[in-house]
């Protein structure tokens, strides 16, 4: 009985007058997430998308920055302006140095109550989903999680948030009609990045969070950074070579790595391959893995199940290698080679190596 099992609710529309206490709620807010001094790219994607929503509604787009010091916050606000924000709410306090649920929930909830946005967007990251769940419950408003599409419903100016359900088998569009703000978390890499325009400026509104470290129950003892930053590489790779169960044996996966090296590509995989331990879990692409948007996605031995498809169909060009002409992947790939991947992959590696050698000579 969580959000959106399609049969549990009428798919019709509840006609609704907005409660008078919410009519003053205006504007689109984007929570600016940052880690280790850098803004998470999903926040830029949200600013790009938030800009479109704000323009459609004829309202302002605000970034919400929570940081440890004014210096750090200013840099984040500037980036938010470059990516489309009109203004930023900047809350600074030493207790906000790293993410913890309690002080972040309290600070963001206070900002929302004071400045009353109609829409509040966060990235569907471990931070965003933790924070959004607590803030929405505190505010007693609706929250649509892990969205892949946002739009304004023309009938009632509501946020129409679309998200996959049942592991991506279906999509559903969800409205929050009678409560404000309308909250959504959005999956990283689904929306495109907006242009960065360094001539843009905006107003900074300083917030003074009422926090006392002694009152914050949870303490951070240590932060252990990931050794390998594969995650970022995969999500932002221009080219990805991915392998599936059709490669049959773990040593055949070597062919995927070889082609990736020839292309300067990242390596991805389907869930069964990850579960079999052929590659690490951070390389899983799909519903329960990463979403990617490369220029080129080469899928070898992958059937194209919907749970995989949702993570990679944003690729510009998809090349599928599969001996089964009826494999679902051919329904949405750009090019298909109906053949054995164990023969095609080495041929591709050789061909691309030739191609780049020729390019180099030409320069």
């Amino acid at each position, binding site marked *: 009985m*969580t959000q*959106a099992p399609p049969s549990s609710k009428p798919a019709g529309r509840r006609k609704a007058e907005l409660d008078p206490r919410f009519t003053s709620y205006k504007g689109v807010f984007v929570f600016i997430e940052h880690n280790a001094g850098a803004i998470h790219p999903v926040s830029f994607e949200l600013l790009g998308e938030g800009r479109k929503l704000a323009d459609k509604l004829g309202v302002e787009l605000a970034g919400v920055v929570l940081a440890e010091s004014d210096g750090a916050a200013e840099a984040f606000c500037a980036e938010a302006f470059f990516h489309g924000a009109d203004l930023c709410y900047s809350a600074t306090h030493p207790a906000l140095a790293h993410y*913890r649920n309690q002080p972040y929930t309290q600070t963001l909830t206070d900002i929302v109550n004071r400045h009353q946005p109609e829409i509040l967007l966060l990235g569907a990251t471990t*931070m965003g989903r933790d924070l*959004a769940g607590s803030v929405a419950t505190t505010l007693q408003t*609706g929250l649509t999680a892990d969205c892949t599409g946002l739009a304004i419903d023309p009938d009632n100016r509501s946020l129409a948030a679309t998200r996959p359900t049942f592991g991506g088998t279906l999509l559903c569009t969800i409205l929050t009609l009678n409560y404000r703000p309308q909250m959504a978390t959005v999956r990283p890499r689904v929306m495109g990045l907006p242009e960065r325009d360094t001539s843009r400026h905006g107003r900074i509104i300083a917030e003074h969070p009422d926090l006392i470290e002694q009152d914050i129950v*949870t303490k951070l003892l240590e932060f252990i950074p990931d050794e390998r930053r594969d995650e970022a590489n995969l999500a932002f790779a221009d080219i990805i070579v991915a392998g599936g169960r059709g490669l049959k044996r773990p040593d055949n996966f070597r062919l995927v790595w070889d082609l990736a090296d020839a292309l300067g590509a990242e390596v991805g995989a389907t869930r069964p391959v990850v579960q079999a331990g052929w590659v690490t879990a951070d390389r899983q692409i799909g519903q329960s893995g990463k979403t990617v948007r490369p220029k080129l996605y080469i899928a070898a031995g992958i059937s194209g199940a919907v749970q995989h498809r949702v993570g990679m169909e944003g690729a510009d060009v998809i090349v599928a290698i599969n001996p089964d002409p009826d494999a679902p992947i051919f*329904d949405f790939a750009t*090019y298909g080679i109906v053949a054995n991947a164990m023969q095609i992959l080495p041929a591709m590696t050789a061909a691309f190596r030739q191609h780049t050698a020729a390019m180099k000579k030409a320069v």
Partner: protein
Amino acid sequence: MHILVCIKQVPDSAQIRVHPVTNTIMRQGVPAIVNPYDLVALEEALRLKDRTSARVTVLTMGPPQAESALRKALSFGADEAILLTDRAFAGADTLATSYALAAAIRKIRDDMPVDLVFTGKQTIDGDTAQVGPGIATRLGMQLLTYVSRIDRVDLERGEITVQRRAEGGVQVLRTRLPAVITVLEGINEMRFATMPDMFRAARYGLTVWDREAAGIGDVTKIGLKGSPTVVSRVFAPTPRAQKAEIIQTQSEQPDDLVATLLAKMFTKHPPLRAAICPRAVQRT
């Protein structure tokens, strides 16, 4: 120590198909399973039980058939099981779900204090990951999501130390009990049910609470009425306009197929030419 594990019965989404004409879910014959992420939470609770002789209670909200999910949990070694079921709960979104679960947890607490509430990372049908945070907020408990390891539980001091998956690394956090923990996937493997536990699970007299028994008076907070979100449209992902162009050559030799592919691809998608820059890096 008393650990409460919230679980949910879900349709096995790997087996769900969409009707090609009506675009509706074909549920017939799709087996109901315990949300796999919740089993990770249950196993983590059972490991704490092994170490500290904690008591483990499982709680689920769902239709009467969700009983089988509870019996499954009992067969793995949970001590008690409570089914929260009432038609008034139907159609709940995450806000209404956490309201009902929090009410039930308050009631459980009256009998025996709860030190930890465990949930899975998210469900495989709703995928929201919001019910855990909702419960914590409503009960005023500390919230630790995406926990990958429980380092230490210090009952005397009433503290717990965990590792939490964050962006770019792992946070080691210490907080005060009681706390709500959502457990990251893949951090353990569910044990096998033992024969004695299976027998016990089959015979166990479940506690079944309806709305009133759970102490919920305000019907506007639960089910469809208590849900601020409304599903306005359900649809199948649009198929791409075009199917793949299948590369064919007379010889069907790998080299020819690949040469044809590259020629087509570079002509139609010129930016790809420049995107390719091979790497000399050694991978381990």
